[in-house]
């Protein structure tokens, strides 16, 4: 049977225990081990704690002379000094008005300047005499009187333009002046004067037109209705989307460019050499004429090649077997591995040749090329599908049907190779064998496993040219 009392008691007991532990701990924490010879009572006083804090009232000395009364305020013993109502001079005033204020007797010092007089800062508006005006300061539809009046008002209000404009008497001289007119005139005069007086003056230009336009624009911005704000937000969102798509396109084009450049570089060592191939790359770039090519060329780095296989480099001292250099890197995906195997097999080559230097280099390059070829094939296939879908759309919209040349197709390649008809003419393949037909690209299940981290091109079976999904839109733009 559970007794309430026992529950309560056990809880309290626990707490008490804990608290006891805490205090014991704290006591020892106070880093005041009991010094030799100190009385036990004194030591307890010093380290006594009250909920974790030192009880200092045991240590602070107190006077018991006054008992519990509050201590009397300690004021100075001398008699109170007198304060006199004294008139004072204000240096900032010109008329000699003597106001009075309370000053302590011993602080009265007539020669001392008034403390606040130094805050009388005035902004000095330049002044001009008549001759200067006649010579330099004439301006269309500003008379001398009006200019003088303007300067007077500016001086009165310390060049605070909104107030100057407000208090400027528009009817006095007949013409209605806007704030920009006033500022224009003022700054023009000041500029002229300073040019005349000191030639080394930096010109302070005031562009009235710019100011007017700026204010007009600000006013328009201010007066926008909520519908216009909505519209603007939608437009900005639209712009964001367009930018994103553009960047997608650029990236795709970049990838393509890398692929292309790979083909030029493969005879060379894995690190690539830019010099011999840069010319060809330039030509290719021109030929491609892809959109946003400018951004591409700036960011494209011919040295870096992602598509090449990186074989394990043996650096450092120590002997190693050359055949180890032929070892495939461990990070290639299953697909590439399989394709390499298939090609070597079908070409009736050895899977593991002997490890002579030339053989090793050639073998490694060959396998890199296979990988490259696979990627090129994939890109070409994507492009082909885009072309197909475009063709269908074009035909749907009433254009003339056209056939895609078999040369451009890569998805349906005869395994046996090309017919000899294709071997004629410039730019034709040199043999009828088609290695790329050996290569198998991504299957349906493999759609997400892309080692190159590129967004998967739509799998062959699923694409329907007549649908207009956002995917299609994206790939369509990449072809353009």
């Amino acid at each position, binding site marked *: 049977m559970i007794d309430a009392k026992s529950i309560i008691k056990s809880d309290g007991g626990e707490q008490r225990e804990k608290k006891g532990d805490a205090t014991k701990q704290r006591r020892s924490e106070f880093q005041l081990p009991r010094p030799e010879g100190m009385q036990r009572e004194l030591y307890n006083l010093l380290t006594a704690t009250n909920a974790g804090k030192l009880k200092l009232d045991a240590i602070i000395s107190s006077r018991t002379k006054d008992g519990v009364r509050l201590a009397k305020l300690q004021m100075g013993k001398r008699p109170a000094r007198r304060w006199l109502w004294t008139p004072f001079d204000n240096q900032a005033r010109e008329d000699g*008005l003597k*106001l009075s204020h309370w*000053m302590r007797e011993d602080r009265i010092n007539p020669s001392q300047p008034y403390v*606040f007089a130094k805050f009388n800062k005035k902004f000095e508006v330049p002044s001009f005499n008549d001759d200067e005006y006649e010579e330099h300061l004439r301006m269309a539809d500003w008379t001398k009187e009006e200019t003088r009046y303007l300067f007077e008002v500016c001086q*009165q209000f310390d060049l605070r333009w*909104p*107030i100057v404009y407000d208090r400027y008497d528009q009817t006095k001289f007949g013409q209605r002046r806007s704030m920009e007119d006033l500022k224009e005139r003022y700054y023009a005069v000041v500029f002229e004067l300073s040019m005349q007086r000191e030639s080394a003056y930096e010109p302070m230009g005031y562009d009235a037109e710019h100011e007017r336009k700026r*204010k007009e624009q600000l006013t328009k911005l201010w007066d*926008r209705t909520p519908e216009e704000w909505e519209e603007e937000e939608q437009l900005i969102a639209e712009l964001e989307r367009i930018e994103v798509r553009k960047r997608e396109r650029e990236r795709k084009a970049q990838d393509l460019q890398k692929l292309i450049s790979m083909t030029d570089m493969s005879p060379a060592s894995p690190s690539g050499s830019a010099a011999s191939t840069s010319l060809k790359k330039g030509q290719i770039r021109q030929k491609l004429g892809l959109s946003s090519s400018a951004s591409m060329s700036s960011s494209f780095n011919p040295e870096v090649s992602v598509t090449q296989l990186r074989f394990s480099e043996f650096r450092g001292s120590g002997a190693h077997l050359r055949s180890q250099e032929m070892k495939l890197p461990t990070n290639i995906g299953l697909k590439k591995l399989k394709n390499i195997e298939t090609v070597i097999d079908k070409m009736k080559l050895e899977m593991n040749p002997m490890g002579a230097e030339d053989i090793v280099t050639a073998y490694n390059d060959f396998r890199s090329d296979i990988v490259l070829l696979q990627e090129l094939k994939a890109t070409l296939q994507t492009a082909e599908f885009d072309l197909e879908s475009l063709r269908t759309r074009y035909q749907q919209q009433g254009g003339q049907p056209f056939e895609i040349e078999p040369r451009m197709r890569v998805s349906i390649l005869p395994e046996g190779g090309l017919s000899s008809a294709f071997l004629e003419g410039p730019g034709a393949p040199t043999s009828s064998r088609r290695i790329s037909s050996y290569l198998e690209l991504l299957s349906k299940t493999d759609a997400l496993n892309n080692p190159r981290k590129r967004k998967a091109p739509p799998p062959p079976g699923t694409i329907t040219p007549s649908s207009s999904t956002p995917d299609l839109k994206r790939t369509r733009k990449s072809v353009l």
Partner: protein
Amino acid sequence: MSGGVYGGDEVSGIVFDAGSHSFRIGFAGEELPNFDIPSVAGIHEYETNDENSIMRREKKVHIGTTKMTVPRSNCEMKNFMHDGMIDDWDLFEQMLDFAYKDCLRTESQYHPVLFSESAWNEKAKREKLTELMFEKYNVPAFFVVKNAVLTAFSNGRTAGLVVDSGATQTSAVPVFDGYCVTHAVVRSPIGGDLICEQIEKMLAEQKIDLVPTYKIKSKEEVNENEPPRWTEKNGLPEVTESYDKYMRKQIVEDLAQSILQLCDSPIDVESAEKLPSSPYGFPNGFHKEFLAERIKVPEGLFDLKYLRDVDNSTLMNVSQIASTACGMCDIDIRPNLYSNLLVTGGNSLILGFTERLNHDLAHKCPPTVRLRLSAPPPAERRFGPWIGGSILASVGTFQQMWISKTEYEDGGRGIVEKKCP
């Protein structure tokens, strides 16, 4: 120099703030005005027999609540202010005499005087005031400041849009850098007096008899909504209509202060019905709980449709006033004005006034604008301009700005235009 406040230098100036409801008087450097006299005075014309038994007409002016509210025959109540400016100069002089003699108990020649004025004050009036102070009262120094600027100072700012909702009008005055933008001042004659009128109409509709206090001899307690039982005082003199009206208005003002409330947003009928009721006991013993009228009456300030029997074609509601004034200013200072909105005036003490104004303005102005309404506590809101004047007149750097007697003598009364912006 008297220490104490940083930057302060008390020269024992006097600050006068004349309003349509009351006249605030006090010494500069103080926190609140020492005296708050109603702007209405009783002018009593009576006939006396002097020593030679000749009938003479005498006129006596009773100023101050205690003297004014005594029922007398032939005593007209008059307000010396009209349209926010001093109108009746004789009465005003009497007020000043009363102020110096009975309130401040000092002589005018020893104290510099700071006066507040409305932003639309006329040049002639300003000059007349200057002349009066220097010639009659012999003040050593004098200065006039626009009350909107003073309100801004009392809130610790030099710029902002001052929305002053007082007894006779509500105005919005933009202040920039310590100066008023006079061409952008917008005002409309809606204010506390209009609210009182609306309440009177409402009471008349509900057939509530408004009996002023001076008539009541005794009353008995009745339950709510029961007809009141009270006895009239006998021997009352034949009071004038203006007196009676004034006394009734006092009750209405009290009623307005107790029960009115404004809704945060334009009201809808359902929430108006759900509002908690507020009871009020009239001087004649009548009790009533007010429900929807609490919110409908002040709604007229923000939504002119709720004003009864008033031609609202020329009126503007409070938020319109504020936004128009702002719109008339230069675009560069507009954000500055919106982020420094200052509410002042006795009428703005209605519960919910500032929240409602905030809400309405937030709808009117563009969403990017930062709107910040600053509403000081009630005591400071009633006496906003006076407090600003007190601050100004006791600050050390102001002492060079006074118009002194010598300057007045040299420059004539036109000096006030030059020196007081």
